């Protein structure tokens, strides 16, 4: 048979090329508007932990106590500052516009292309994480320059590596959860409420405002089974030297298990959702 049938592009190199293009595309989108870029990428997400510092200071003044739970005042401030820094690495719940693309029928064009649509979303995650690594580092260095007396320093370089591993893996879990919720757009009229709901829960479980040590006993035993705790609270405590290598290993295993489960769930909801996709928008 001599008929020349064009070979479908595939293989790792092809996927890598697409991912690279998707990341470049996402960077261009992010930088399209100067003010938007600065506000969205630099300022976003640090306000609540910073305000909690004032709350904790007020509590220490009111109670006159030297410690709340196992935390002294300086420790709590350090926790909040590092928490604010690391939270910048966590993928935002509104970071994908997949649901909107499904509602409006915009994904049709990708479905007829020789690519996995997931790579386009992954491009967004890679772009966000790489940029935020730079921003979080800058934020931490600026803090160190402006307020060296109170600004927290990690206990070791190993702790930094462990903490970053956990945060990025945890953020990937959150990203997958966001993908799953976005694919609900195949079935539901509205998904933003689900995303906001999940943000409330994840923020709370991650210890964004309250470290696990301050929570009641049943939460202390339950939350370590879920990925948000290992995404923020545990990495901050590793940086502060409150958790060690064994905790890191437990966290890594927990996050890997969650990653696998969420990856399978995302693939399943995407595949099932596509069967319901009509390709039309408003």
């Amino acid at each position: 048979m001599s008929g020349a049938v064009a070979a479908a592009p595939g293989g790792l190199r092809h996927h890598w090329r697409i991912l690279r293009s998707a990341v470049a595309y996402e960077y261009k989108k992010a930088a399209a508007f100067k003010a938007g870029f600065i506000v969205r990428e630099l300022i976003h997400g640090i306000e609540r932990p910073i305000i909690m510092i004032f709350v904790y200071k007020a509590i220490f003044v009111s109670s006159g106590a030297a410690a709340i739970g196992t935390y002294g005042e300086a420790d709590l401030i350090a926790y909040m500052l590092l928490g604010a820094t690391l939270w910048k690495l966590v993928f935002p719940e509104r970071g994908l516009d997949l649901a909107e693309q499904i509602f409006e029928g915009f994904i049709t064009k990708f479905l007829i292309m020789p690519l996995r649509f997931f790579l386009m979303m992954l491009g967004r995650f890679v772009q966000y994480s790489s940029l935020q690594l730079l921003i979080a580092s800058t934020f931490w260095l600026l803090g160190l320059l402006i307020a060296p007396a109170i600004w927290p320093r990690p206990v070791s370089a190993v702790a930094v590596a462990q903490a970053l591993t956990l945060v990025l893996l945890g953020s990937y879990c959150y990203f997958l959860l966001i993908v799953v919720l976005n694919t609900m757009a195949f079935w539901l009229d509205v998904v933003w409420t689900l995303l906001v709901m999940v943000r409330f829960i994840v923020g709370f479980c991650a210890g964004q405002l309250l470290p696990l040590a301050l929570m009641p006993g049943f939460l202390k035993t339950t939350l370590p089974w879920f990925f948000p705790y290992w995404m923020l609270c545990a990495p901050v405590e590793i940086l502060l030297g409150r958790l060690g290598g064994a905790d890191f290993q437990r966290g890594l295993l927990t996050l890997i298990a969650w990653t696998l489960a969420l990856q399978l769930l995302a693939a399943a909801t995407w595949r099932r959702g596509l069967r319901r996709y009509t390709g039309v928008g408003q």
Partner: protein
Amino acid sequence: MTTTSPLIHCRRLGKTYRTLRRREGVLRLLGGLVKREHVEHAALVDADLDILQGEMVGLIGANGAGKTTLVKILAGIIPKTHGTAEVFGRDCFDLRDAEKTRLSLVMGQRSQLWWDIPPLDSFRLLRAIYDVDHDVFERRVAEHAERLGVADRLEVQLRQLSLGQRMKMEIIGAFLHDPELVFLDEPTIGLDLVSQETIRRFLRDLNRERGVTILLTSHDMADIEQTCERLLILDGGKLLFDGDLPDLQRRLVGKRRVELHLEDELVGEPTDAAEVARKHDGELVEVSPRRLVFLVPTARSQALVRELFDLLAVKDLSVERQPLEDLVREVFRRGQLEDAP
């Protein structure tokens, strides 16, 4: 019904858009965060225009010609960059509620009604906004819906209506408060022939009965030809023509379309007929075995027909005015119009 009161007055009206120049490459992209380059694009250049009360004016132009920009300036949505633009004797961009109550706007590609509720509910909101008396409102909705053939669709969600029905609802909404001036930006885009004709008739009737001044933009020449007495042609932001259809034909040295149906089938190329057409400054534009179509200057059409009758066995003949579409194409091709001789 045309009176002499001017409703729209523009002198040397211009609009320039400023857009960001996109740059390639990561370094240049990041550099763009610090220093940006802009490109200016003139969407409208020195337009002079007066529209009187009761006129129906058609605005024609290709995509990007500046039609929508002109409509948006006149409706007070965007400011002009320079020149004068007045509606009801007041700067378009500074219209007060009193003037806004006297105008209306329909955008063919952008719905102004609520997507997921029945149009009647949207109309009730418009009634509150424009403070229309209850009985008058009920009467107008019924009357307009009847005329447009959508009386039975008023309580169906907008999203469940066909494109044509949706546009008719938009038009009802625009006329509920009995405006004196209505801007319609491509109201028949994508509609079937019946819906187009219904909308054109509705606009003609409202103009005749109530003296509503209408400025209509469209890509469909039939819209303009069948509804408007006056024609504006925009190209590249410049107003190339302002006048009526006969005037356009006169200034373009209008042509006639001559169509011959032959007794016998042609054998070979009709070179003789083409030669005759050339002799009269015309051209043979279509050839089929028993049919020939010529375009020829109006003044030479009679002579051409006479010679063709001598040359060919003609069974039937029709001589028609050149379609508006051809005239507009001719204007765009020339880029400008010389004054009539």
